């Protein structure tokens, strides 16, 4: 009986998603093959925008920065998150150690950047505390690394939480059996706990991969991709080309490229992990 109504329940949401998500995506894909300034009707130019992508120094910089974001995210928010989880999950009062890491997650990306702006600015708190005179947000790639630390400050807690959930959901028997066999410390983690956590690690790393590929808000609020485009990520380049330079066609080509890269990276990673 319920089966009859399933379509009725699911279809409205599916149609809504199709109309609001896939239709704009197809429109963007079409725009990427045109010259369009938001005013004159789009003019078909084939793959010229994609050819320009290969030859654009700004795009090379933003691709480099995006790769730093992806690699940095794997090492810092994800790697450190795992470390904090492993160190705190089975000790008395461990939850309290995790609370300080968790709180920044409540901030939005833009809010986070607003908070860190006076800390990282040239006459900011970090320079005062460290007794140095460094322009953290000006030179590349230092500015990307500084923003990556801000991102770590926010994301560490949620990754820790997910890893703790993973650790707590591991069945006790294999661990006890391994301990009886004499395994402990690093060997226990490496050969028993880590493989058992694999499904959850796949989710955490997959989410972090997508989030880092589309990094936008922190960069936009802290540096607007500058100075001189040297801290742009692909998402910032997409926004700037589209809405600042009014080159909707080229901006759409960057959007399509970013979508393909994100989709492909997620697919390849998850296919490998969830076999």
């Amino acid at each position, binding site marked *: 009986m319920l089966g009859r109504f399933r379509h009725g329940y699911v279809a409205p949401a599916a149609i809504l998603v199709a109309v609001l998500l896939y239709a704009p995506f197809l429109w963007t894909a079409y725009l990427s093959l045109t010259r369009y300034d938001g005013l004159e009707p789009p003019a078909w130019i084939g793959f010229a925008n994609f050819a320009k992508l290969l030859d654009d120094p700004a795009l090379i910089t933003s691709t480099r920065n995006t790769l730093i974001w992806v690699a940095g995210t794997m090492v810092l928010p994800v790697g450190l998150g795992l470390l904090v989880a492993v160190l705190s999950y089975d000790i008395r009062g461990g939850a309290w150690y995790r609370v300080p890491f968790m709180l920044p997650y409540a901030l939005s990306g833009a809010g986070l950047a607003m908070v860190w*702006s006076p800390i990282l600015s040239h*006459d900011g708190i970090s320079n005062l505390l460290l007794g140095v005179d460094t322009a953290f947000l000006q*030179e590349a790639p230092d500015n990307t690394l500084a923003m990556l630390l801000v991102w770590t400050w926010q994301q560490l807690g949620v990754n820790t939480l997910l890893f703790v959930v993973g650790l707590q959901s591991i069945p006790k028997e294999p661990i006890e059996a391994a301990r009886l066999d004499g395994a402990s410390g690093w060997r226990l983690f490496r050969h028993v706990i880590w493989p058992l956590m694999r499904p959850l690690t796949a989710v955490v790393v997959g989410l972090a991969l997508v989030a880092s590929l589309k990094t936008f808000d922190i960069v936009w609020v802290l540096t607007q991709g*500058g100075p*001189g485009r040297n801290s742009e990520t692909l998402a910032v380049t997409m926004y700037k080309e589209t809405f600042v330079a009014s080159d909707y066609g080229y901006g759409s080509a960057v959007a399509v490229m970013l979508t393909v890269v994100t989709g492909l990276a997620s697919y390849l990673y998850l296919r490998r992990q969830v076999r």
Partner: protein
Amino acid sequence: MYRSRVATLGVAALVLTACGGNGAAAPQKKTELTLYNDKGAWTKYFDEMGALSKQRIGLGMKPNGYTDSAQYQAFIKASFRTDVKPDLFTWQTGGMLEEIVKQKQVAETTAVWQEAIKAGDLSQDLAPYYTIGGKQYCVPMNVAYWGMFFNKKIFDKYGLKPPATWDELVQTAETLKKNGVKAFYHTSVLFSFVWFEQLMAGTDPDLYDRLAAGKAKYTDPGVVQVMERWKQLIDAGYFINPGDKTDPGDVLKNGKAAMVSFGTWFNTSMTQRDMKPGVDYDFFVIPNVNPALPKTSMIFESGPLCSLAKAADPDASMNYLKWWTTAEAQEKWATSRGDVSANPKVTIKDEALGAVTKDAGSGKYRLVNRYFEATPPPILTAALDGFSKFVAEPATYKEVLETIQKEADEYWSTHQ
């Protein structure tokens, strides 16, 4: 099964109806207009104008202020294709106005201009900035002359006077430096062009005009020399850090820099901070770099207030623009912000700004169109990024000029 399909189709139809437009809108009679603008910080002053217009012409106005100009421009462009249309909106003169006028989106204001010039409410000199294809579009929301705002208390402390020559200006910066005070403000965000246009206009205003018209190149020796001069000033340690995000109004008030170069609209920032002209701060016209020039070059800008050809109530919007140019409206608009006005009848309260406006009107200066309006939008975008890179890494000036010229070559190859 059949019923569930019918229900699904019904919901889908509702969704699609909600997403679709409602066809051609019938003309409305409006008693309150919405003024979209990218001057979010001026909401209070727009509100005051709305209250006054309601009282005087029975037509209220509510501002809808954006603070991000890219978002704002994208919204206005999108409104041309949707039913959400602003009754009134601010824009930029130059290439950006031309772009939307060509699309036949902007309501013509030739009649308003003719009447206002006849009544002495607008000057004929201003008309060219608003004329495209022999017709006028929009009215001046504001006009601004650019010069140097300076912290008077710092100047008094070190016995400094407003400089009359470029050498005196550099000497002033040197004295400040010796006393541990940064002389000048500059920024890597948006207003990164300010010192470029000032040095260009004060060195070779003809070259500046040719550059804007695509008749000179950014890699020409004259432009390279200007960048080298700019670099020398940065290297000498006269500027604050360009990445400093302190509001320039606060920079001047707190004395983080002793001088800030902006248009006369910056006086609004001083008003907002309760700073008193002649006591806390003052204003001088920046002397030419090249003393042989016959007139002092002064950067000039005028921002338009426009209405759409397809506005919801075109008559009401046009009436509002007409009222906006009158002395009564402009008196309020200028005095509340402590700014100058496009209406020559308005008395400027601030002495220094009043004198500049009067001198500019009498032809004492060579008015140079601000870089923002003078430069076509795609070149401007590349230049703003380029100057932003330059102020952070001054040694890159040649690379920066080449990058801008590459964009200029691409643009002028199809727009000469």
